[in-house]
Every structure is written in structure tokens, then in C-alpha cells.
């Protein structure tokens, strides 16, 4: 049955992610160069945070970025500006990005996490501008 095959393939896909993520567990003890937190409370999920998460996980997997972690946190209390992510690069203050989409999050990954430049256009103004 076709549907069976599709589901089986996806289970394998899941297993691949699980295996890969377990290898990077040790990074969680503060070794990671960068950490991306996707806010995945109820409002974030309803606003599309899962697609943001999926895009980031797949890009990190594809590009084999073993020193970048993606994780989930709960509601950040700014429900009107979800989906949100927080980028925390070692020794730098964390930057919060609002109204994310998969495409915008990939841009943040490329420019900020990998390139070192904050994407001001999507960043939450830190100094009350």
C-alpha cells in the first residue's frame, strides 16, 4: 500500500534525526558555538513555529553544522509577534527575532549564526527604539 510506504520512509527520517541529535547531546553542556531557541508555546505553535523549527533542523542537518543547536522553549510572553526565535552565540548577548517564517529563519541562520551579522530588520529592538 502506498500510504504505508510513505509513512515508513518518514519513520526512517525520524530515526535519522534522532540518531543525529543524540550525537550532539554532549554539546548541550555549553560547548555549542551557537544556540537557536524556537519559542514553541501554544501561541508560537498556532502562529507557525513548527515550520520555522523544521526549516532550521533540516538546514543544520544538510549543512552538517554540528556546533549549532536548535531547541525549544515555551511562550516568551509576546504572543502577538510569534513565531519568535532567540539566537544565542557564545559570549554575545542573545538576540530575539520576531514574526519569523521558515525563509526568514534560514536567513537569520545564514547571516547571523554563520555570518556573525545581526539581521536588524527582523530583530526585536533591544534598546526601545
Amino acid at each position: 500500500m502506498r500510504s504505508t510506504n510513505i509513512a515508513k520512509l518518514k519513520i526512517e527520517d525520524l530515526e535519522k534525526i534522532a540518531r543525529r541529535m543524540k550525537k550532539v547531546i554532549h554539546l548541550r553542556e555549553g560547548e555549542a558555538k551557537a544556540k537557536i531557541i524556537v519559542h514553541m508555546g501554544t501561541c508560537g505553535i498556532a502562529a507557525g513555529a513548527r515550520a520555522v523549527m523544521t526549516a532550521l533542523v533540516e538546514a543544520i542537518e544538510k549543512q552538517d553544522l554540528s556546533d549549532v543547536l536548535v531547541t525549544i522553549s515555551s511562550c516568551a510572553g509576546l504572543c502577538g509577534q510569534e513565531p519568535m526565535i532567540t539566537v544565542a552565540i557564545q559570549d554575545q548577548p542573545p538576540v530575539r527575532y520576531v514574526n519569523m517564517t521558515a525563509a526568514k529563519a534560514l536567513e537569520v541562520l545564514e547571516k547571523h549564526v554563520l555570518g556573525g551579522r545581526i539581521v536588524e530588520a527582523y530583530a526585536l529592538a533591544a534598546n526601545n527604539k
Partner: protein
Amino acid sequence: MAGKPDTLLFETLMEDLSLHVLDIAENATRAGARNVLIEIAAADARLTVAVKDDGKGMDARTSQRASDPFYTTKEGKRVGLGLAMLAQSARETGGGVRIDSQYGVGTEVAAVFRPEHPDMRPLGDLMATMKALVAAFPAVRFVLDYTKEGEHYHFDSAKTP
């Protein structure tokens, strides 16, 4: 099934059941669960979605109030809509939600849906939900059991070949 009147207090914002599952599993991880079991079973014109965890659980008062939309134990927040929305989605189809929790032991949230009801939400992308959970919490064991019309899928993040 918990018997509150069927008043529509708010609209459920979750488009499909897989998003509800992600939200309910997020509660479990926040409660410190090391094991999260997600069971989805369709049989006899019912679809049951259950999330069981071994997190810190809730005391009687908390679990009684947990599906109240204005209840949350999170700081700096006035509403906790996740469980309330799940209950609402289930009730819209003529089903409901049951929360069994034991303080210090864990929690089981089980929602029953009537898939034939016109207001039934689609299942959605369950694999995307699992992927997000597994990627975000590699130290937590997630098990998915999915049964529908004789098809059975099983995933266990602790047993990857």
C-alpha cells in the same frame, strides 16, 4: 469526559491535531518528563490522541483547573490555552478530554474525537511534530504509537537502528 457546558469561549487556534500534539508534548517536556508516549488510535468512529509523560505531574487542584483557559502556572502569563484548546477541538466534534495526573508521577492527557463530525480537524503532519520534538529534546525518549485501520506505526527515539 469532563462535563463543562459547550460554550464557545474562544476559538481554537490549532489548525490540526498534530499541532495540538506538539503543544501537549511541550507541556510534558516543561514538566521535566524523561519519557513521553504519544498514542494515536482510530477505531469505532473515534480517534483517540493520548500523551503520557513521567514529568512532575499535577496536584489535584492544578489538574482540575488545567483545562480552564485562564489557568496557567507559568510566571508572567495570564492565560494557559493549550489544554483548553485541545478540549475545545475535541468537544467541537462531540468528544472531549480527560486529564489524569498524579503529583510526582506523571500526566496523561487523552482527547477523544469523532472524525465523522463536520468540525473534525485534520490529523496534520504528525511527522513534523515528532521531528521538532526529537530534534529539540535529544535526551527525552519519545515514543509514537499510531494505529489506524490495521496499519500500525511505531517510533521510539531510544531505539534507532
